[in-house]
Structure formats: structure tokens, C-alpha cells
């Protein structure tokens, strides 16, 4: 048995070091929201200029701006001749006239992807996302509290879950700030998956704590937690390794569309593994200590 819990404050410090920059970024820069949330249009075009030369991006930008107003144009990575146009909502008729204008300059234009979201839809998605997050949190707390016959476990598991959610949200806030990574519907899916994985992993540790506690009723709580953590650590790491392998392959080799979705899952898996041993278990220990201290202090308050 290794005395993992001795260093519990260090674990909280590590968590803080990861979370604080992300949360800081979240409050100063926010998230770089994709059109799923904000509303707007993304239009991906394949444009080849007539003489086979490179398409002049500035020229293209100019055409687009005069036609639809404010817009961003950028070449698509790993795809020849493809450009991504982002703008306020470009409606269908406007799009047709835009394509006609571009065709005047570059005859071979084809539409790869067209996505437009009205502003109402975007706000709705945001609200629904938050609802889903809250529902999931409440449901998981209640289930664990029921299974473990104690609200302590439920709340601690959900705290660890929020720890992981914050890590991922923070990382994506930073990524959005410095690399222009956007969050979209897929990101929401990733977030919910991470939440379930985090709890999944935490439960295995808690389950062991419960089992050991049942057998050794007299042992100090911290020793029980230490024993449980020691016993589950290799399982926890092995399991996460297999998921990380699969995700890493997907991230490095998979399609562009799901790249950041997979990256979110990857971060989530790593932090989810870390948090079940180094956040969820120490929280229990701290909770237990506080509860004891309260019991001891109570008489003092009366006098």
C-alpha cells in the first residue's frame, strides 16, 4: 500500500495549475463559438483559377466582401483549391449570386459544404446544452448517492466530473484564443462523453473503497482510501491506455471533421483518469476530515 493521500494538497495544486489558466481564459476571452452557437454561414468552396495558377486569396476576399459584407476567407488545410468562407448568415439567394460573382473571375467553382444557422437556433443549442449538463450532473449524483448510500460519494464524484469538464473547457478556451479552434455541437457531445467517462472511472475507485471499508470497519478512512487507490491504479491506467491508443490513432489519422472532437475526448480521458485517483479520492479524505473536525468542534461552539 502506498500512501497516496499524504500528498493530497499537491494533487489539488496540480489540478489548480491546469484549471486556473483555462478558467481565466474562459472569463477573459470566452469560448470561440462556432456557427452552431452563434448563427452564421460557413461555405466551403473548391476554386481553381482558369490558368491553373494559385487563386489569389485577397482578390477572392474582395469579391466576397463586396457581395455579402464582412467575411473571413481562409484556405482549407490538406485540401487543394479549397477555401472556407465564414460570414454572418448568407441566405440561399445571396449565396447563388455570390457563386455567380466568383464564377466570373474563376470559372470552375464547386460547392463542397454549405452550412447556415439562424441566430435563434444557436442560442437554443446553448440553452439545451446547459440543461443536458445539469440534468446529467443531478442524475449521476443521485444514482451514486443511492448506490453508495451516502451523498458524500455522489457529490464528490460530481465534483471530480466538474474538474474534468473545467479542464477540457479551459483547454478549448485557450485553443480558441490562440489557434482559432471553434466549439460546436460535436464539442458538446464530447463534453458529455467525458462526463460519463469521468464518473465511470471514479466509480471503480469508489467501489473499491466501499468494499474495503465494509471488510475493515475499524481502519482509519485515509488508509482505506490509500489501499483502494493502490489496488485500482494499474487497472485505471491500463484501461485509459487502451482508450488513449484508440483516440490517438483517430486524432492523428482520422478525418479533419472530427479532429477536435477526438482531441477533446483525448484530453478528457487523460484528466478523467487523473481525477478519479488524484481528485475524487482525495476529496473523500478531505470531506471525511472536515466532517470529523466539525464533530469535535461542536461542543466548543456551545460554550
Amino acid at each position: 500500500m502506498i500512501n497516496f493521500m499524504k500528498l493530497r494538497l499537491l494533487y489539488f495544486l496540480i489540478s489548480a495549475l491546469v484549471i486556473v489558466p483555462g478558467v481565466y481564459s474562459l472569463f477573459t476571452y470566452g469560448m470561440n463559438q462556432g456557427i452552431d452557437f452563434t448563427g452564421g454561414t460557413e461555405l466551403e468552396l473548391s476554386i481553381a483559377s482558369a490558368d491553373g495558377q494559385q487563386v489569389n486569396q485577397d482578390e477572392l476576399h474582395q469579391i466576397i466582401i463586396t457581395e455579402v459584407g464582412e467575411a473571413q476567407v481562409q484556405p482549407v488545410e490538406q485540401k487543394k483549391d479549397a477555401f472556407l468562407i465564414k460570414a454572418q448568415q448568407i441566405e440561399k439567394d445571396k449565396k447563388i449570386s455570390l457563386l455567380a460573382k466568383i464564377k466570373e473571375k474563376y470559372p470552375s467553382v464547386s460547392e463542397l459544404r454549405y452550412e447556415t444557422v439562424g441566430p435563434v437556433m444557436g442560442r437554443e443549442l446553448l440553452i439545451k446544452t446547459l440543461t443536458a449538463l445539469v440534468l446529467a450532473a443531478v442524475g449521476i449524483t443521485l444514482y451514486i448517492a443511492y448506490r453508495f448510500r451516502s451523498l458524500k460519494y455522489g457529490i464528490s464524484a460530481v465534483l471530480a466530473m466538474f474538474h474534468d469538464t473545467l479542464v477540457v473547457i479551459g483547454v478549448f478556451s485557450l485553443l480558441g484564443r490562440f489557434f482559432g479552434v471553434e466549439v460546436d455541437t460535436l464539442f458538446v457531445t464530447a463534453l458529455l462523453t467525458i462526463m460519463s467517462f469521468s464518473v465511470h472511472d471514479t466509480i471503480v475507485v469508489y467501489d473499491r473503497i466501499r468494499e474495503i471499508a465494509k471488510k475493515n470497519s475499524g481502519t482509519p478512512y485515509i488508509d482505506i482510501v490509500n489501499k483502494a487507490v493502490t489496488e485500482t491504479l494499474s487497472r485505471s491506467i491500463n484501461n485509459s491506455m487502451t482508450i488513449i491508443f484508440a483516440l490517438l490513432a483517430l486524432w492523428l489519422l482520422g478525418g479533419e471533421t472530427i479532429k477536435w472532437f477526438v482531441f477533446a475526448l483525448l484530453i478528457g480521458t487523460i484528466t478523467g483518469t487523473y481525477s478519479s485517483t488524484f481528485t475524487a479520492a482525495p476529496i473523500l479524505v478531505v470531506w471525511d476530515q472536515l466532517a470529523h473536525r466539525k464533530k469535535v468542534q461542536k461542543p466548543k461552539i456551545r460554550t
Partner: protein
Amino acid sequence: MRFPTLFGKRKTASNSGESLEAARNSSMKKPRVVRTFIFIVILTGLSLVTVLPKRLNINRSFTLFGKTIFISRQLTRPSIDLTRFNIPFTRSLDFQMGLDIKGGTRVVLEADMQNIETNDRPTALDAVKNVIARRVDLFGLSESAVKTSKIGEQHRIIVELPGLTDTDEALNLIGTTAQLDFREQTPDYDQEATPSSVYAYLDSFKQTGLTGKDLKRSTVQFSPQDGTPVVGLQFNDEGKKKFAEITQRNVGKPVAIFLDEYPITIPNVQEPILNGEAVISGQFTVKDANSLSIQLNAGALPVPIKIVQQETVGPSLGQEAVEKTFRAGLIGIGLVMLFMFLYYGWKGLLANIALTIYAILTVAVYKLLPVTLTLPGIAGLLLSIGMAVDSNILIFERMKEELRAGKPFELAMELGFGRAWDSIKDANVTTLFVAFILFNPFEFEFLNRSGMIRGFALTLTLGIFISLFTGIVVTRTLLRLFLADTRPEEKK
């Protein structure tokens, strides 16, 4: 077949005091293990059929006892068709690809209900959906879907057009407001002569100036005489006048009702109708009457619609992504299997066999349900593979502990399965809970109902159930059958 091994054993195994009994049980249940094994083999074999490509060409020659044998034949994968047993169930056993993979268009239209009375709004929305669905059918797309959704005061119609990427023209057609009008035959049309063609017959109907605007609403009613379903029409004041004139002119003659230039019904006028309340009778079933009434309402309650969201994905974009994702997934699974084998040895190998069976069963279920594959769906599938492996790792680690504590191999195995089950159950229940919220099966308005997220939730849910079966039942059966004798090696 039952799986008593899955649940029955836990009771004995969770009390370490009854370990002897657990061991005795395991040896007593040998025939049952064999039966389970045979069941697994048959199930896998059947599923394997669905996994095969549609056509498989075998062209092979090999030499046997000095003779050259040449085999050349084409295997065709069967499809499932139970209609001949009166069960409406057919499956082509092809993968259903989602919009993001196959390419296609998804449009969300918003219906402007400003001019429709609140009570009529649900009817009007149904009518719009019906009209759009009929227009969409004109494109002849096999898997198109038209759904309605009502969020607060927003009435929406969601149209999915897989395979359709040249959408501008199509959307013009879909987005127009429905046009209903009543037509009568020209007076010089010869009632007795057989019309030369359907077109000539329909051409003989001319507009009367009575349109959907003059119709208040249509309802399904039941005839007071014989109780059969009939379709009632209720005109407004303007319509009442026009309809009275038309019916007076056309007693004994047909009056056609056209929706979007297409006749939906051509009843005969039996008597002049002056009060603006008409009834169309015929040998309607309730369903027919409903459908006719909805179409009439589409004209009576014309709702302007506009596009609020549109996604179009070219097929090349999706195909490329799917190939990459698929290849990456295979490599990922390969790595997982390698890891399992290196770390857990023969046990790992058996777990890998179980994982392969998992993959085969999953493909079979996907094709049978069928599950529409989307990119997030594939990600959900891969994630569930990770969780499938997790059950095995939990079990194997438990076994290791029991072995370390000096228990004999068979007992350690049974205890490992029994004790890991608690963790596996709790962990999977929470994942199921999240999948449930994501899938939103009760169509709660405050939660997401987008197809993408649902696809993910569905694959995750299926993955959990199938992985519980392969991770526990299959692995356990394989271990009991093939690894029980290697105790001396394992114990070192």
C-alpha cells in the same frame, strides 16, 4: 437460452466465505458452459453473414494430391425479407450512411404561424409537413426524412435529403407555400366519351376561382347514417358563396381539388351546397380520410415557411473523412489488441477474440436495426470498444489479486468475474444515463434532438449492451473452456 452465469454467480462470489461453493459451481456447470459456447459460436456465425460484403468473388486454384482444383464462384449475401410470413420486416443488410458521410442536405424550415389561430396551429404544421414530404418524394431519394418539431412558439420542419447536394432548385420547390384550388370541368366536356389519357382528363378541369383561401378548415367526421369516416369542409363567407355557385352549376358532375397542381380528390357533386359546409364521402378508411383532410388543411391554412438552418455536405468530403476515420479506428483497435496481448498474455488473446466477436455483433446489429452511421456515431462506437476492453481489464486485474492472495486459478477466475461485476454495473449505468439524455427518447423540448448527437448516443448505448455481453459472457466462457487447465503456469 438463458445466461445464468451472468447474474446468478454474483451472489455466491461476493461472499468470499462461500468460495468453495463457487468452485464447485464452476465445475458443475461445465455442460452449461459448453452450451453457452455453442450459442456464442452460432450467434457469431449468423452475424458474420451480415458483415460480409454484398458480393464476394472467390477465384482460387490449389493443388491437392497432384490434382489442380479450381474454385470460382460468387457468393451473394442474402437479404432479409419477412414479408412472406406477414411480418413487415425487410433489411438489405447494407450500412446506412448519415448525411455527413454520404453527402446530402439537412434543412430546418420555420413555419410562420402569425396568421393561423392558435388552435389550428398543430393541424397547420401537420399539413405543411405533409405537403413538404410529398414534394420531397418527387426527388425519389430513398432515405429522405421530414420531421416536425415544436419548441415554445417556434414551429419547425426538418428535412433531410441524403445524396442531394445540388439543392438550390430543390429548396425553391420545397420552400413555397402550398396552393389549393377547386376546379370544374369545362361545360363542353363530353361526360360520356372515354378520355384519351389521364392527362387529357385532368386537363379538362379548369380553375373556378375558389382556392385554399376560401376554405376555413377541413376535419375528419363520421357519417351520421352509417358511421363511416368522411371528410368535412368548412368554407368562410366568401367561399360559401363561390362554392354554392359551383355546386349549383355542377350537380351530378365531378369537382376536382388540386394541391400544388396535383389532384388529391375528385368527388361528384350530389346536390347544391349553399351553407358552406360540405362533406366528401367515399369508401374511406380512417387513415385515408385523415390524409385527405391533412392535404386540404395544407391549402386551408397556408403557412409561409423560411429556411433557418441548412447544411450541405458534398459526398467527396464525407467519403474521405469516413475512410480516414475507419482506417484510424482499425489501427486504434489493433493497438488495443496488441496491448492486451502483451500485458495479459493468453487471457489477453481470449479477450481479443471476445473483442472481435464484439465488432462482428455490432456490425450485425447496426445493419439489422438499422443504425445510420455518422461520424460522431463512429466515434461513439470506438469509445464503446474502449469500455468493452475495460470490463475485461477490471476482471483480469481482480483475478490477479485473487491469485496473489493464493487462491486456485479456477476460483480466482470466478471471484474475479463476480467482484468486478459491481464496478462494471455501476460504471455502465452512469454512462447509459448520459447516453439517455443525449438520445432524448421522449422528445423533450428542452433537450437536444439533433440527429448527429442522437447517432452518437445510440451507438454508445448499443456499444454498452453488446460489450457487457462480450466482455462478460463471452470472455468468461472462453476462459472457462480454454484456460482452466493452465493453472501451474499462471501461478508462477
